[in-house]
């Protein structure tokens, strides 16, 4: 692929160019995810979904985005203006930043730092500050309850996301995403680490869904309880930032899982003898996105099936079930690595 980048050797202009390309690609990808969610939701719910704007409704979210851009930005009179305006940017920037470290194929990676996983966990928890700010500064009680719930939720589930990834890092011995994928040439980590890896994957998906504030963990927005939660008072493009960030976050959570558990851009092992990847390396993007969207679909499936948890049950789930299991799981994984019981293909 053309975008072979090393951050140290390239100049400012180059970096700006790449940033612009990423921004362009992912705002379109975010819109596409919104469309996908609406279509998938419709198919779960005996409906057809958007089908009026463009062929199969493909341009529906474009039209929605245009509408949101042209809408008036309203706000509450007694809102804390500065924080109120800052919050949506916090959320969207933090989610876009995380995209920089993903290896889409061997050479299509903007920013290959040696603490990739750590960076992702750190960045993905900054977004919640935006939600807290937005809920606080709106000067609305529903928004405040939503923001406080979000704080509680993210602090708790951050642990599980981190620990389940740490479990996998025990296997790889590195935090750098490109090297994690390199390790998986001997078999995806979910195969290599078998039982503890599967447990870690399940915990990661549950905690990741909670991290993105999606149903069944959508305490933050809980429209039957709080109306719209933290973004009650936002309109137009500022609301769109929150909305887009939610979907990009979902993509990120799925992409981390695809990279760490399912071999990222690596093709399935039974396809390797065909040698497609050597002739045409860009096929890796297809595998990466394929795995990611399969996991995104799983998260959508959760959302359109399960009822929402109550806020105290949410914490019970984390502190009584996920966290102890996760700690046990780490010990189990350490034993397996120590005794050399991993499965290598």
């Amino acid at each position, binding site marked *: 692929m053309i975008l072979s980048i090393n951050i140290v050797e390239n100049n400012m202009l180059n970096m700006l160019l790449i940033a612009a390309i990423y921004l362009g690609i992912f705002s379109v990808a975010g819109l596409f995810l919104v469309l996908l969610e609406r279509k998938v939701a419709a198919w*779960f719910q005996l409906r057809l979904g958007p089908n009026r704007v463009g062929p199969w409704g493909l341009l529906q979210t474009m039209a929605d985005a245009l509408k949101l851009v042209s809408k008036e930005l309203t706000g509450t009179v007694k809102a804390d203006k500065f924080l109120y305006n800052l919050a949506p940017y916090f959320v969207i920037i933090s989610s876009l930043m995380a995209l920089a470290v993903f290896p889409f194929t061997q050479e299509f990676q903007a920013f290959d730092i040696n603490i990739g996983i750590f960076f992702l966990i750190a960045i993905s928890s900054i977004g919640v500050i935006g939600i807290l700010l937005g809920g606080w500064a709106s000067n609305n009680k529903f928004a405040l309850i939503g923001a406080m719930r979000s704080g509680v939720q993210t602090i708790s589930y951050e642990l599980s996301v981190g620990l389940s990834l740490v479990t996998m890092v025990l296997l790889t011995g590195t935090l750098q995403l490109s090297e994690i994928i390199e390790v998986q040439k001997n078999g995806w980590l979910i195969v290599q680490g078998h039982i503890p890896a599967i447990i870690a994957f399940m915990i990661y998906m549950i905690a990741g869904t909670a991290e993105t504030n999606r*149903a*069944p963990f959508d305490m933050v927005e809980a429209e*039957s*309880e709080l*109306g719209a939660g933290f973004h009650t008072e936002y309109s137009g493009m500022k609301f769109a930032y929150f909305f887009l960030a939610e979907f990009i976050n979902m993509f990120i959570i799925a992409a981390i899982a695809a990279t760490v558990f399912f071999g990222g851009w690596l093709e399935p092992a039974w396809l390797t003898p065909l040698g497609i990847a050597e002739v045409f390396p860009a096929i890796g993007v297809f595998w990466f996105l394929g795995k990611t969207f399969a996991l995104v679909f799983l998260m959508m499936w959760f959302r359109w099936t399960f*009822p929402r*948890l109550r806020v105290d049950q949410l914490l019970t789930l984390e502190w009584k079930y996920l966290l102890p299991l996760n700690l046990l799981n780490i010990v189990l994984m350490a034993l397996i690595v120590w005794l050399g019981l991993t499965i290598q293909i």
Partner: protein
Amino acid sequence: MDTNIANSNLKSEDYFINMGPQHPATHGVLRLLLTIDGEIIKKVEPDLGYIHRSIEKMCERDSYQQIVHLTDRMDYLSSHINNEAVCLTVENALQLEVPERVKVIRTIIGELTRIASHCLWWGVMGMDVGALTTYFYGFRDREMINDIFEETCGARLTMNYNIPGGLMFDIHPNFVKRTKDFVAHFKTKIPEYDKLLTGNVIFQKRMKGVGILSKEDAISFGASGPVARGSGYSCDVRKYHSYSALDKVTFNEALKTEGDSLARYEVRIQEMWESLSIIEQLIDNIPEGEHKVATNAVIKLPKGEFYQKVETARGELGVFINSTGTKNPYRLKFRSPGFSNLSLLNHIAVGGKIGDLVASMATLDLVIPDIDR
């Protein structure tokens, strides 16, 4: 309301929050004034009157035929049963014996209405606890009932099919076949409801032990219908004061003793099965005959007071008519189930979280136009 806030000796950590009249969980225009400490409900004050249309007053100027169509607009989800209540009151007052055929058709359509209402309630119940998909599954099945109604009565919601003395017109030739199709279809769908929502561990956790209502409280608050039966208070009007053709069928009164939200939920699911069984018993033997008996064009009730109660999908609906012998009632009072059931809300929601309030409110199955009238 404002003076209440000023005079109450609030602790500093409590705050007020206004839930409704524009709120997704209040199903219409109910306003709840909540006193909350963090997430915990301290007090719930329902504020009514946003959809008051003075139906009882309008009834005083209307003839008895005209009153029927107003009751469609009270509890619009069991409109047929509301119509039936008024018609039964008038028929009892006139000592008019309606044909057997009318009684059976009224009962079948009444039970279909109950299933339709419970379908919608089930969908909305799921939506209130966050499972949005249930709404569409509930509506899929309700739609079939609505088609049956539309073919026979001409309307889907505000049917106005009953008239004092019988039915406005005979059932459509397709009615029996369509109803049988529906019964067969719906028997496969209730287990699906159970799989999707009832058995779900999250749903169980949300509902079990939440919003507990004891039998004594249910009686003293005047609860009726599935709400009271969830607390073990056997009060089915269909059993104890059976009307129309309900004395000819055998059915069990759905009864649970736990008194929590889950019990009320399960009572309604059980009621759907019972309604199906009632329909099955009647649908094959609708007697031949007239669909109405002739009444005077202007109905004048004899002087006196008349009361009739029926079991709507929400509970006991009572119709009280005070007649002075003219063509209009002197006073007409509806004892609506929603109003009494709403009065429980503060009792069962206090001490729970906001999420619990929403869940227990959904199990009360409130229809706001029924409360305000």
